[in-house]
């Protein structure tokens, strides 16, 4: 490897230090240099989010003393849950963008509302009085079916997702309006079932909160260490131990401080656990399974995916069904949080917030780029800005303007980093 003839490479391509794919363990210096190189060439990772959250904490924390309190922190966890849940589905949808054509679901907020309404109607005592779990199941079956319906129109008939779901936006908002007015006089149907109300209103007791926090940290540490050990034993380069230790300690501190703060108020919300479980599950699907790999391939280069024998339309159908499923889950979380559904459920700026969350969290509009956890990051940013502005008593109009600007900044960052990556690829 090291004594190759000079004509094999060019000065621009050849880096003697890393020729032959480097030594089994990278040094900390090399690792930092590699990361810095990646950032400079446009692979920003979660850096903008971390910077953004710190800025938000400083700005609102200094303007309003209520912002950085335990009470407001648990409120924030409750507020962000519906948007974060729904944004998971949208991350999947954005991932399969077809070249220049963005895939999007403009109907997601109203599909979620249809799910919420379905659940509420099914649990109504005596009419038909389904148990809580059956009502939940009914709701997600309905919304997954809606996702399937959309996917058929998009893949079989070739109607762009933008148009299909614009139609869906109107249709499903109409369905919500029809159902809520038909089954109520005031336009609001309340949830009677205690378990269903508890989904977004219960808190875990302190001990369970601590146990969960510790399980997360230990689980993360174990998977990181195991991975590093396996890689070393197979002679593959692994992250330097110091970096692994740093990441484990970083996650540990953030998680345990979050649990401690939540416990000093009402505890960790139950819905945070639900959200975390979905994030973990879908992250596993997206990053560790063949199906997940194929989703990214379809978003990266549909023609390459097709030639590799991947059923591209099949992947698209499944992704839109996942989105439908998560819309149902999000609708249930939303309905539970409000303890009811009403004629305006799914309206307002919910749709904007969901899509903004996915994009702000780092999912590219151009397909193939983005992690599932960006749903959480983006929802955290969006909701903390809105929460801060609410505490400051800022008017709705200003709130829309600020949220819109943050969204545009995120999209701008995406476009610029994409251009940067393309430029560095020409080397």
């Amino acid at each position, binding site marked *: 490897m090291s004594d190759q003839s000079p004509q094999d490479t*060019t000065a621009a391509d050849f880096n003697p230090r890393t020729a032959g794919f480097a030594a089994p363990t990278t040094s900390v210096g090399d690792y930092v240099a590699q990361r810095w190189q990646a950032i400079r060439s446009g692979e920003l990772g979660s850096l903008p989010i971390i910077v953004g959250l710190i800025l938000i904490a400083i700005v609102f924390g200094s303007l309003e003393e209520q912002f950085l309190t335990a009470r407001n922190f648990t409120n924030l966890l409750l507020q962000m849950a519906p948007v974060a849940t729904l944004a998971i589905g949208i991350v999947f949808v954005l991932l399969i963008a077809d070249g220049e054509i963005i895939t999007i679901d403009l109907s997601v907020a109203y599909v979620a509302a249809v799910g919420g309404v379905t659940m509420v109607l099914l649990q109504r005592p005596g009419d038909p009085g389904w148990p809580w779990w059956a009502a939940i199941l009914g709701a997600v079956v309905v919304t997954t079916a809606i996702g399937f319906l959309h996917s058929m129109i998009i893949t079989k008939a070739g109607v762009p997702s933008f148009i299909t779901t614009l139609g869906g936006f109107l249709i499903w908002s109409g369905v919500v309006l029809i159902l809520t007015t038909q089954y109520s006089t005031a336009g609001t149907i309340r949830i009677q079932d205690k378990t269903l109300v508890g989904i977004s209103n219960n808190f875990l007791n302190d001990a369970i909160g601590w146990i969960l926090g510790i399980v997360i940290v230990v689980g993360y540490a174990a998977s990181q260490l195991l991975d590093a050990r396996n890689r070393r034993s197979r002679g593959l380069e692994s992250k330097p131990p110091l970096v692994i230790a740093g990441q484990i300690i970083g996650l540990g501190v953030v998680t345990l401080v979050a649990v401690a703060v939540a416990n000093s108020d009402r505890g960790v919300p139950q819905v945070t656990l639900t959200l975390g479980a979905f994030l973990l599950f879908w992250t596993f699907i997206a990053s560790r399974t063949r199906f997940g*790999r194929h989703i*990214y391939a379809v978003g990266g*280069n549909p023609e390459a995916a097709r030639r590799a024998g991947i059923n591209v339309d099949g992947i698209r159908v499944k992704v839109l069904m996942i989105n439908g499923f998560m819309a149902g889950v999000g609708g249930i979380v939303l309905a539970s949080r409000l303890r009811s559904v009403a004629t305006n459920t799914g309206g307002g700026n919910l749709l904007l917030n969901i899509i903004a969350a996915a994009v702000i969290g780092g999912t590219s509009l151009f397909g193939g780029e983005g992690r599932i956890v960006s749903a959480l990051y983006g929802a955290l940013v969006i909701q903390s800005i809105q929460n801060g502005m609410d505490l400051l008593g800022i008017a709705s109009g200003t709130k829309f303007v600020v949220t819109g600007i943050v969204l545009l900044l995120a999209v701008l960052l995406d476009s610029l980093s994409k251009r940067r990556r393309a430029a560095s*690829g020409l080397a």
Partner: protein
Amino acid sequence: MTDRPNSTPLLECRAVSKKFGAVQAIYKVDFEVRPGEVMALVGDNGAGKSTLIKGIVGIYPFDEGQVSFDGKPVKIHGPRDAADLGIEVVYQDLALADNLDVVANMFLGREEMRGVVLNELTMEKRAKEVLESLSVTTLRSVRQTVAGLSGGQRQAVAVAKSVLWDSRLVILDEPTAALGVAQTRQVLDLVKRLSEQGYGVVIISHNLHDVFEVADRITVLRLGQQVAVLDRHAVTQQDVVHAITAGTLAHVPGMQEADA
């Protein structure tokens, strides 16, 4: 390079023809590649190079004629059949997903699994072995995304992908068309290494300089017919240009329809 006269052809096409409607795209073409040989396929636009390749890999199967692989007659009905035999094509657009890393691209559609989980370690190790066997050493890491690679590196990844699956014959469609001087150099070295390792290589190119650099023999197509199979060492670029533009046609176009 190898003891050519004695080796049986890896791939042998005898009198293959293909018609698209009234257009005779190729007519009674003979074409062969021996193991460890680089066979260049040259010809002007519309000479039938692409049709011949698409026939070999079964995208548009030949209407008539005989194809043998390893001395045995075969019927190739699609890219799957070709891949099963060990024939891989690296198309000009390379078909790489920019957002995926080198390993993911090389194994796309044929991922190694451990239960339901991707077996990343096995794939990464195997990818490195193949790249190293081809002396592709310019990659910073096999875990970097393809978006950050140079044109020559991308070509190298696409070629490595094609030899990952016990393939025997690699067909390269204009591998140097979009590359600069240094990148072209890398790809031509790669082609030589493939043949040294015993792969049969077909290289389609318009660039006769590149062809003379790597090819052992040159098959010239003109107006859908094979007009010459030349030994690179016995001819000059002028001879090849002459064959491409004015090679003697065994069958006069327009006469075949009268026969049929």
